[in-house]
């Protein structure tokens, strides 16, 4: 897999929980394609299957059937993993979740450093990179603070810095602005746009927030576990706002 060709491709992904009478189909026959550097919104009501799709693409859940490719690599074929998923997550995927899930006993900079160090980046280089990221996200002044000392917006920016630490090819965000006010929420969304532009990172965001849809290149809409539509966002309004 190379950076320039990387894209995410899902083929007929289906996820069924339970069995027999207790069987629940969370996602059914979903096929999609994400290009390099693309920022994609995943829309849909609760229970639509957004989180299921996100966890399958994020390699933290396996599909019941269907295949998932990252670049040229077949990553999962049905429930069977074809690669070391944890190593893939470590090297190629960044996560931003609704709850920031920062490690509570690490400071802001240590949380970012941790993502680098588990990817074999040495101490000093990791620290420099972490500080650089915090600076670019305008939260460097809080680098020595523990998560509980930070505001919601600051925590979310630290979480984004952690997600970006290893220059991932794919950033997955699940309701990243749910706990933020509209201004902060928009700032976070714009940050994803910037990251995609500057680093060529593909960003997939599951969101209910329709106010920032203009930021996205493409919108995937889901309902009842099915992908209803894939449409491009209104380019003119996007250009005007970005």
């Amino acid at each position: 897999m190379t950076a320039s060709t990387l894209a995410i491709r899902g083929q007929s992904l289906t996820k069924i929980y339970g069995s027999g009478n207790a069987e629940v189909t969370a996602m059914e026959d979903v096929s999609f394609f994400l290009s390099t550097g693309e920022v994609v919104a995943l829309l849909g009501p609760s229970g639509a299957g957004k989180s299921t799709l996100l966890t399958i693409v994020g390699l933290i859940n396996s599909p019941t059937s269907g295949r998932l490719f990252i670049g040229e690599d077949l990553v999962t074929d049905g429930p069977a993993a074809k690669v070391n998923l944890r190593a893939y997550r470590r090297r190629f995927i960044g996560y931003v979740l609704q709850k920031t899930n920062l490690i509570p006993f690490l400071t802001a900079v240590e949380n970012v450093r941790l993502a680098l160090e588990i990817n074999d980046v040495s101490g000093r280089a990791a620290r420099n990179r972490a500080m650089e990221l915090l600076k670019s996200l305008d939260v460097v002044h809080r680098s020595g603070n523990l998560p509980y000392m930070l505001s919601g917006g600051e925590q979310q920016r630290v979480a984004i810095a952690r997600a970006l630490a290893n220059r991932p090819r794919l950033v997955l965000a699940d309701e990243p602005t749910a706990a933020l006010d509209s201004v902060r929420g928009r700032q976070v969304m714009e940050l994803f746009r910037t990251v995609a532009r500057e680093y060529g990172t593909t960003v997939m965001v599951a969101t209910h927030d329709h106010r920032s849809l203009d930021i996205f290149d493409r919108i995937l809409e889901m309902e009842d576990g099915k992908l209803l539509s894939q449409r491009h966002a209104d380019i003119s309004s996007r250009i005007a706002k970005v």
Partner: protein
Amino acid sequence: MNLALKDIRHNLSRFSLTALGIGMLLMIVMGMGGIYQGLIQEATLLVDNIGADLWVVQRETRGPFAEISRIPRNLEDRLKSMPGVVSARAFVTYPVQREFRDKPLRMQIQGLSWPDDRGAWLPLVAGRRIESAHYEMIVDQILGLGLGDKVKLGKNVYTVVGITKNMSSMAGDGLAFFTLLDALDIQYDYSGEAIRIEREARRWRVAKQDIGATLPSLLERALLPSSNLAALPTPYVSAVLVTLFPGTNVNTVVEKISGWTDVTVFTRDQQNELLLRGVVDRARRQLGLFRSLLIVISTIIMALIIYTLTLEKIHDIAMLKLIGARNSVILGLILQQALLLGFLGYIFAFYVGKWVFPMFPRRVVINADDLIYLAMIVFVISILSAGLGIWKALSVEPNEVVS
């Protein structure tokens, strides 16, 4: 970055208290081991220190420490005449309890065959050996007596002239050393009235015999002190200790003495074996079992603590897995904390124990072998405890963060 240390730094007070608790538990384990060792040392102390090669005791008995042994004192002379024997010393031991300064004073009296044995082998921390045939005593410091203290035992008053350290009996009573004659005096001390009654009874017994009627002078003799009556034996002693010339074949001497039908002989090792296998065996096994039980309990408690600490971090561990942390990172976090808990607990147990154990009424002996053994046990306990936490941590799915 060391996650274990970062987590500890964040929860320092709680971690310290946990380490303290584990330390207390380990201190009890250490103390039980010390009491166990103390019991063994107390049991074999005298046999090891007194410097006798052979213990000659009453026939078919197991010696003065196991049961009552009574042999005539003149056995000393018989043994001294044997080839290869340097010295033979009569030995008396028995417990007494008296009042001293309105407090009970319980001691194990040892009679030394003065002047051959003046207590030169005793580990004196103050004072001197016994230099007089009568009225001097050497006591262990556990008895709480000081040099120059005078204690009335029987009809006489004895002065403390020397103090020993760590000389106590199997029952934990301090040892008190007297000359053999003084020890016998104290043992066979009867009141004047009891002596008068016994003499009168003796006279009456003789009067009832034909010999009393035909030899009236015997009736008068019956009223004399026991020591003046050749027909009555001299006081018995507990054992006679034999020291051999270097190079003497012990087995040959033992074989010869064993041929005598009135005594039994034990070598020093046999006497020790009798003490450990017989006298203190039950207590030793009980302490050993109790200690094993404590180790099992410590393992369970420590495992639960580590498991609880892991449960508290389960969300963070899931997050670590989500961002791709290797198992070694997670394993290291739990294992290092478990080992550190064990280590700090051990250090606490060692230093606090060092301060507390000497205050115990009986000896607590912490030797290097036991410390190394316990350190290895703590290491294994820490690993086992971490195992439970690691099992829980490795079973966590990264998608728990999302849910």
